[in-house]
């Protein structure tokens, strides 16, 4: 049995502590040790983006980091991204409104990535949205609903009114 490392991190605003082998990824630590199973694992080698979380303010793939590296870090997962009362945040609401998900497996990674993207670029062009989404794979939607959701979320976050999803975004 390899040595266990003590890991203390602020996760979704709470101080959490656990022990893990050095080779355990942050994604596995969140899911198995902290019971935060909203972070999903698709490919486990950095391609699909399903495991995206915030670490110290930037969106990263939690399967490409070891948990021991997150000792002392501030982490936000999908569980901590919406309002504390359990209602949907503007990005989550936009995904629901615009059919930005079907099976939902990829959705946590998309929601985190879109939060990060819109924080950096609150008024993105269509091309910028497509580029920003390129690091997350979705096998159901064909992406059109997701693109519509990002546009709606950008408007909501800017304090404007919601835009209706385009007709082509409903399949």
């Amino acid at each position: 049995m390899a040595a266990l490392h003590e890991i203390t991190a602020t996760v979704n605003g709470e101080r959490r502590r656990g022990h893990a082998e050095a080779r355990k990824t942050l994604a596995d630590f969140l899911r198995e040790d902290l019971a935060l199973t909203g972070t999903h694992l698709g490919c486990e080698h950095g391609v699909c983006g399903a495991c995206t979380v915030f670490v110290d303010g930037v969106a990263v793939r939690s399967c490409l980091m070891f948990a021991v590296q997150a000792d002392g870090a501030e982490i936000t997962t999908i569980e901590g991204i919406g309002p504390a009362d359990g209602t949907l945040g503007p990005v989550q609401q936009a995904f629901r409104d615009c059919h930005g998900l079907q099976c939902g497996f990829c959705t946590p990674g998309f929601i985190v990535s879109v939060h990060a993207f819109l924080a950096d670029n609150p008024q993105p062009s269509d091309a910028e949205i497509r580029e920003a989404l390129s690091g997350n794979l979705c096998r159901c939607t064909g992406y059109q609903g997701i693109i519509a959701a990002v546009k709606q979320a950008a408007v909501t976050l800017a304090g404007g009114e919601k835009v209706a999803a385009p007709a082509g975004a409903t399949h």
Partner: protein
Amino acid sequence: MKPAPFEYHAPTSVADAVALLAEHTDEAKPLAGGQSLVPMLALRLTRFEHLIDLNRIGELRGVTREDGTLTVKAMTSQREVEHSPEVAAAVPLLARATPYIGHFQIRNRGTVGGNLAHADPASELPAVALALDAEFEVASASGSRRVPASEFFIGTWTTALESEELLTAIHFPALGGAAWGDRSGFAVEEIARRSGDFALAGAVCAVALDGSGNIARAGIGLFGMGATPERARAAEESLVARSPSADDLAEIGRLAVEGLAPTDDIHASAAYRRRVGAYLVQRVLGRALEEARG
């Protein structure tokens, strides 16, 4: 857990890191951003007894400009380089090539030094370092040395770094200095099936003009075109003291890929890569010249 077990070290200084490398040599691997190493460990393409995490070494981060040189410390994130006005002003080619690396989530954690030391032949920054004649600063327990980019890349994933050495910084000649004067231009282009994928082929170009508008110096780097990033020396030399027209550029492109043996795989044939490579050189050279001519 997918990677094989390893012992984890998190030094907080370069001195401690190189001491660990001296102790464990080829049983140890420095862990930078981990965006290439961790997948390789997860897929068990490689394994090490010891990983030396560089992320807690503050002295390995940051960008400084001094006397016509921009120094990028090895653990500076690709995100920082991509968004730094100082990098965009001093080494435009580096700033413009960086957004082509992976996706923004990868660049948030990926580092400049990690990318270069990984030495993937389809990666952008090695070609940038080659084309600009960057220098690599390398430290070990017995001192430090500088390696020119032209001597750094040995083969696929193989560099001039010895197993007890650590890449600590990369020195790029800055715009407005001796190598790349005020009348210079830079461009990067690549072909990838999907945004963020490794390039099937790519090219970077830097040109500097003399007082009469002829090319004083040219740097052309190709990636995805062989086992290492390639420098198109013959094409560069053919450009010096000339002011090529648009018609000449196709010929330069063909010259740039002459003698290259890119891989033939399921993603693209060698013939396709050569053809696309020649065309990309034509395009980046055209754009760099346009910028230099102003």
